[in-house]
């Protein structure tokens, strides 16, 4: 059955990573999107990790992987026990994910602005092979500051890359804002766009399931949080606290 909120057990898994006993849902802005993707949208399963027709989720905003790790554990991609010592010497899970170490992680990310160009290439490669698998990239609104995204948005739009979805998690952490709104940047480049409440599972599900075969789709998922300053959210996650990484 479709969820309306992230189930409590997922928050418990997340707490095993973060040590955050308060289960403060506002601290993990990516959790709702990632949960809805894995629970209700993507055609992917732990026993199909190498299936060429699987859908691909690319976490470009790689500095906040706790939510993704929790969902991967909940869905059986990785052992739950891996969540207890993230970023230790023995751990395969780091503060930025490495695709060669974590089953189900499609790209290593961390440095911002790499996931969307990779997703464009992946979608082009699948299209060239007549492979109908979807490619969904998750970026942050701050991450859009990186110019490589501007390049990739233009290329994907002009090449009418229908297999590609870009979710922009908008937590108002970009430096200067985007006059006219983030969605307008994609629409100008001929993307299909949607602007949804990033906590509303039904809205996320509807938007994420929509595919226009003739052009890529951008979904701006607004979180209700104000920008979470270093020292509040990302510190609690035990994540990198550099300004660039904690914000974007």
């Amino acid at each position: 059955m479709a969820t309306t909120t992230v189930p409590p057990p997922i928050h418990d898994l997340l707490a095993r990573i973060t040590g955050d006993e308060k289960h403060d849902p506002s601290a993990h802005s990516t959790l709702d999107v990632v949960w809805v993707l894995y629970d209700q949208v993507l055609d992917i399963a732990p026993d199909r990790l190498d299936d060429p027709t699987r859908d691909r989720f690319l976490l470009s905003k790689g500095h906040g992987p706790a939510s993704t790790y929790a969902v991967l554990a909940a869905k059986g991609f990785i052992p739950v026990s891996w969540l207890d010592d993230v970023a230790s010497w023995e751990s395969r899970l780091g503060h930025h994910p490495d695709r060669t170490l974590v089953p189900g992680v499609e790209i290593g990310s961390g440095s911002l602005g790499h996931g969307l160009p990779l997703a464009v290439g992946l979608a082009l490669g699948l299209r060239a092979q007549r492979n109908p698998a979807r490619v969904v990239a998750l970026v942050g609104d701050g991450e859009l500051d990186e110019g490589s995204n501007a390049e990739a948005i233009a290329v994907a739009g002009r090449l009418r890359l229908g297999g590609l979805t870009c979710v922009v998690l908008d937590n108002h952490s970009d430096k200067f804002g985007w006059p006219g709104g983030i969605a307008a940047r994609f629409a100008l480049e001929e993307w299909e766009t949607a602007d949804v409440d990033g906590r509303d599972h039904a809205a996320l599900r509807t938007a994420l399931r929509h595919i226009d075969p003739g052009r890529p789709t951008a979904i701006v998922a607004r979180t209700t949080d104000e920008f979470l300053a270093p020292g509040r959210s990302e510190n609690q996650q035990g994540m990198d606290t550099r300004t660039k990484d904690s914000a974007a």
Partner: protein
Amino acid sequence: MTTRTPMRERFYSELGPLLDSDPRVAVVLAVIGSSGLTDVSARHPDRVIDVGIREQTMVGVAGGLALAGLRPIVHTYAPFLVERGYEQLKLDLGHQDVGALLVSTGASYDASTAGRTHQAPADVALISALPGWTVHVPGHAEELARMVRRESATDQRVYVRMSSAQNARPHPVDGRLHVVRGGRHTLPLVVVVGPLLDTVLEATHDLAVRVAYTSTPHPLDAHGLRTLAGPTPVVAMVEPYLEGTSAAAVAAALVDRPSRVLHVGVPRDSELRRYGSPKDHAAAHGLDAPGIRAQIKELVG
């Protein structure tokens, strides 16, 4: 700078047959080279991808294509291919543990009239600073063609550095050192990379040195170097790009014996703010026959 050199012409002419015969091959461009591939692009619109003047995304797209199981061949001018998106090479290819075949044009000072913006003599040093790369520096269009055909069938990370300069005839491209001019094993050894071979042969024609050739400076054929070098080697390493690029590899190969090694290449301590011809630049850098001769004579006494 728009002149089509023999290597460049040959490279473009190889791409059509590769795309026709191997469904894994995809070509990624940032405008440069696109105009010569119109027919090929029409035959393979999904596998000839020109992203416009967007070199970061050019490399990112190549990484994504490789993740999809394809074999990307990425091509543009050396500075835009290697330097513009260097982090993309490191992360979108290396860190993802996928491969691509990069083929650059405009080696070192080939684009002499274009100025510093179109010159990247540090390209081989930069690429070889990243894990898991092979660097080929063909000395002839035929060598280039053999490399491209062979490497397009692998999944490795490979950089092929084309040049407008080339030798009179091709040499083997098996990655090893090949003796071009032999002699007693106690004679000093000149190792020359790629298109500088004929210049080095001219520069040393009456000197008591041996000359060995390779078109694959990275990884350097350490076994071949050790075998040729002998117990107390005197070696000149002549490279048509940044001087000392192979210094660490040569030092590692000869670590167990006393040696004297000269590294000849494009000087690294200044920017040559002049235009003129590649020949002018070679002379200014000491990389024409008289310049190389003078440096080697100083080494061998």
